């Protein structure tokens, strides 16, 4: 039978996959997608917990409200982020992170 643990493990694996992508990939757009994946994994955890912390027999909508806000924030973040990435592409004709190393030391 499906337990809360199942959901948590799926979320944890999704989070870890996202993290691996952030570290391993070089295309900033793909990295950004992986970040969205991590955020979704967090959302899954929140929703799962909200379903199991019942209030008067109903799911805890406070946690779901946070999920709502997270999705909104992510949307705004994506908009700004893509604008920055486009500006970067305009300046360098590339979205490879390994070339973005002028600042170091």
């Amino acid at each position, binding site marked *: 039978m499906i337990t*809360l643990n199942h959901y948590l493990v799926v979320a944890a694996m999704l989070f870890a996959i996202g993290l691996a992508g952030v570290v*391993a990939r*070089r295309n900033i757009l793909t990295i950004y997608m992986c970040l969205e994946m991590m955020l979704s994994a967090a959302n899954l955890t929140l929703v799962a917990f909200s379903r*199991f912390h019942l209030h008067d027999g109903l799911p805890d909508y406070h946690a779901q409200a946070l999920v709502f806000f997270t999705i909104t924030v992510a949307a705004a973040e994506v908009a700004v982020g893509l604008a920055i990435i486009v500006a970067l592409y305009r300046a360098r004709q590339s979205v490879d992170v390994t070339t973005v190393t002028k600042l170091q030391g």
Partner: protein
Amino acid sequence: MPAPLFYLLAFITLGFGLLVVLARNPVASALSLVMCFSGLAALFVTLDAYLIGTIQVLVYAGAVMVLFLFIIMLLDIKEEEKKGQRLTAVVGGMILAAVLTLQLTSMAGSFPLAKTKLDDKPLDISAASTAAKDKNHPLHSMQMIRKDLDAGKLPDTALMGQTLFDQYPLHLQMMGLLLLVGTVGVVVLSRRDTAKEESKGA
């Protein structure tokens, strides 16, 4: 909920999630992510979070991913070249993912609440309907919600709206401000150079 359904959805979510990371073509990554998010939305629905599931499809799989695809097409981004791939980064990423998964799953396993079965903890709508009869309960004055509860239905969207507008009105305002900042930011960052234009025109 039948277990095979969960495993199918989990497989879709994780499998396509993995594909996002593995695919070398960004378009393939983006499309995999759409599938991954769809699976995730279905998982939300299995947790009785209908509205969140819908939003996940509409906002994420819909709007956001379209934006991604649009940008990928606009910039005409090619595949990552294989030989430039750094072995250290790939190995590092894999190790991180493995260790983190191990840590998190072992933690989740030793968590008593986590062993609760979904079917052993069903939604109890009649309890909610009784509770709402109390004068001090936040749902007491919500006639529509109470009607649904009394009928034994879960008014998911209405409950979500009640929570957001009743409990977090200021947060919503701030979200508006955040979206405004997002708009302004996009305009600022992708604005044409006016000085250049002027000099061209002159």
